[in-house]
């Protein structure tokens, strides 16, 4: 799954958008995963992760945090978002110190992520590079809509729903923040960045 890799929108709007993952691998390092995941979540929360979740249980904007933490299993997948580079650096430093033995992955702009690793004194092991969209690109929606849909990499958030939310914000029926949170709950992984989404919705409303 490469659902956090291919995010779209202007480079500037991607600058404050980082996805973090804590992964166990079956049969290799999944023993006591639940406890380790709880420690990783505590670190992510402390570092200011705006959203996070477990695909089976939902994101923290939809499901109470205690419920997610209590129901973690060896198969759970934990991931979330940061909105500032400083949060990423602090998270990496803390995870290094915690030494949980789980794979830690950060997805984002390489000119932000790689210096963050360096600052945390970590040497990246592997990189999955995004080479963007290929094929019939004329099928893609408009850029600001694509910037929002692609923040749920499994595409659980429809382009038409985003257009509807943009319209609601434009007409003043709801705030961009409220609209962004309504979209975020549809992404079960918790990697939807509602802070960035609110900014995009607001900008679209002003433009219109």
């Amino acid at each position, binding site marked *: 799954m490469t659902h*956090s890799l291919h995010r779209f929108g202007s480079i500037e709007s991607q600058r404050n958008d980082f996805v973090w993952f804590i992964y166990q691998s079956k049969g290799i390092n999944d023993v006591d995963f639940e406890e380790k995941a709880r420690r990783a979540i505590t670190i992510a929360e402390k570092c200011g992760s705006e959203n996070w979740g477990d695909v089976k249980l939902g994101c923290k904007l939809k499901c109470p945090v205690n419920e997610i933490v209590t129901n973690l299993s060896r198969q759970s997948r934990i991931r979330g978002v940061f909105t500032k580079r400083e949060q990423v650096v602090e998270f990496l430093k803390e995870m290094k110190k915690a030494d949980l033995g789980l794979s830690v992955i950060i997805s984002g702009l390489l000119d932000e992520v790689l210096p963050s690793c360096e600052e945390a004194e970590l040497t990246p092991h592997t990189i999955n590079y995004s080479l963007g969209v290929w094929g019939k*690109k004329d099928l893609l929606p408009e850029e600001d809509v694509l910037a929002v849909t692609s923040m749920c990499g499994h595409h659980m958030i429809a382009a038409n729903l985003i257009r509807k939310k943009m319209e609601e914000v434009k007409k003043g029926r709801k705030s961009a923040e409220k609209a962004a949170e309504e979209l975020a709950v549809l992404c079960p992984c918790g990697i939807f960045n509602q802070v960035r989404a609110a900014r995009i919705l607001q900008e679209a409303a002003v433009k219109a």
Partner: protein
Amino acid sequence: MVQINRKLCVGCATCIPYCPVEAFKKEAEERKVYVDEGICTNCYVCIRNKVCPVGAIEESSLDNFMKQFQHVISDPTVTSEGTGVPGRGTEEAKTNDVTGRYGRGEFGICIDMGRPGIGCRLRDAEKVAMAVAQAGVVLEGPEITPLATLMTDIKTGKLIDEALDTNVLSVIIEGKCPKEKLPDVLMALQRVEKEIETTFCLGIVSRAEQEEVSFFFETLEKLGIPKPFRGKVNVGLGRPLIP
């Protein structure tokens, strides 16, 4: 399978914008909503989020293998039986620090067919899988990636005939190739992208050492492919670490 209970549906159309592939349609005469089964990918966004205010969207059994496959691959909350992994069932580079799936001197290929949010017929996935296999990609097997369960021959990427018309929200073609084959693989993708009716997102996995990265960037430049600015970085904290 997703269906609308016609007795309950009031035709309010609240559900329509929620469908990622626009499978909800409104009847002209009775003004009730129906599901276009040829478009629906059984991702269950509508069911999971209870988007119908009167509860008219219902789940019925997935009555054949292809419907079940479609659901597993399109609904990230379902775990793939073959790989034991939820979310379309694959780990790719995320655990490479402990699995060592991609070593030095080779590149991982992750082709997300139907992304971002367009959806794809498996016919197009077969076309792309066969093109890269012919160019030198060794495709991953069913224990690693769900699409391989539909392949009649893992060496060629050919899919079973009954799969070809199936519509999925997205599906990943995964494999790897030796360093020297990477230019051929990228050129094959440049050719086949013109022959498909959908889009795909391309991810190339590399070990993070300078030698590998330099080779990769030089190859892109020779082929006129823009240098990537996004990446997913495995920071090497997994244990036991594959050096």
